[in-house]
Each structure stands twice: as C-alpha cells, then as structure tokens.
C-alpha cells in the first residue's frame, strides 16, 4: 500500500504531466490550423496579384504558429520528465521500504 506522502507526490507529478501534455497538444493543434491557413493562402496566390498587406499578415500568422510549436517542445519535456520522476519516486520508496 502506498503511503499518503508518496501518493501525494505521485498525484502531483501525474497532474503536472497531464497539464503539460494537454497544453502542448492544444498549442500544436492550434499551430497546425494556423499553418494550414497560411499554406492555403500562399498556394492561392500567383505572382501577378500578390497582396503585400495580406502577405505580411499571413507571414505574422506563420511566425506565430512556429512560435507555438517551439513552446510546445518544453511542455512535452515536462510530461516526459514527470513520468520519469514518478518512476524515480516509486524506486526510491522501494529502496527505503527494504
């Protein structure tokens, strides 16, 4: 039976990992939607009637999508580290109980 203190640490790590994963997936999904809009707009343009104002706008959107993808990476790291830390807590508890 896991004692309350260890259980508290494990719950905190699981909550942290799930929060990081959820936020990362939300950001990546949003970034994918923005990226698709940018791609659709660029493929609809041809050289003669290129709208520079709209082009700058979609450039900014593409840049924001890339930033979101960059932010999602450390959030996913938080999930991976939380999983490994939970295993470490269990391993340490095993050592202390023996």
């Amino acid at each position: 039976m896991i004692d309350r203190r260890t259980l508290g640490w494990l719950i905190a790590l699981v909550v942290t990992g799930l929060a990081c994963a959820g936020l990362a997936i939300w950001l990546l999904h949003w970034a994918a939607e923005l990226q698709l809009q940018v791609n659709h707009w660029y493929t609809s343009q041809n050289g003669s009637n290129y709208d520079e104002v709209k082009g700058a706008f979609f450039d900014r959107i593409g840049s924001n999508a890339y930033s979101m993808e960059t932010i999602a990476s450390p959030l996913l790291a938080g999930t991976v580290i939380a999983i490994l830390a939970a295993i470490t807590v269990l391993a340490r508890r095993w050592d202390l109980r023996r």
Partner: protein
Amino acid sequence: MAEVDPRFDPLFQRGYDPARHRTKVPRVEERREAPPLRGEASRSVETPAEPPNRRSDTLPAERSGSIDGSIDGQTSESADDLELPRRNPYRLILLIASIACIGGAAVLFWRRVEDTPYQSSYGPDVASTFAYQFTDALMVPLLTGGLLGFCLWLVLGAVKRADD
C-alpha cells in the same frame, strides 16, 4: 529438549518491522547458556557480542554463534538467503524507459534527416499537420528526458549505496 528452529523466528518473517513486531528474542548471553544438543558440544563456537544495531537486530544468526552446529549451517544458509538483494523493479523500469526515450529521439531525428527537402512536410489537413509537428516537437524532449532519467538511475544507485 528440542530446540526450536531459529528460521521460524519472527525476525526472519516477511514484513518484519523491529519497531512494531519486536518480541522477546533471547539475548546472546541467554543463547550461550542454552545447553548444546547431544554430541555437538565440541562444535559450538564462542563469539564476542556485537554492539546492538539495526543490522544485528535483523540477523540474530550473525550474533549467536553458540547455537548447535547442525542448526548453525541452516541458519547461516537462511541468513544468506535474506542477504541476497532483490532487484528494484522500478529502477529497472527507469533505465528501460530512459533508453527507450533516447532511442525514440534518435528515430525521430533520423526521420527528420531523411525528409525530402523542398517538399512541404505539412499534410493537407489539420490532423496530418498536427502529427508532423507533434513528432517534430517531441524529439528534443525525448532526448532530454532520456538523459535525465539515466542520470536519475545513476543517482538512485549511488543513494542506495550510501543507505547501505
């Protein structure tokens, strides 16, 4: 009078906690005073009493050298069984997970290297674009987490040695 096999001593039972289950265990002096079994008196060995500590509480066979020789062999054998360290399964899981993370990062990196240049890797819909971006964003966290897990595995081993 038949002597009780010391292997049935509560100290040897699984889950024994000296703080909670301490029963009256014959002291070293009492054991020394116990009469040896027939024909085995010449095999009894006197050893000096060790200072009381946690390890000697868990292994009374180590501190009682005057028990009958034929039983002594069995007790030392059971004590050896108790001494065998059982592997920590979580530590093994941590090592395997760390290696898997590093391997996964290597696979994702290789996929990225093999991507065809000048061809958009984003898919035609949100799902495929999301999948591509997700695997792209997962590469560095997997490598970082794998290395960190490996370091934690080493630290756990070092701390366990320090505990012993």
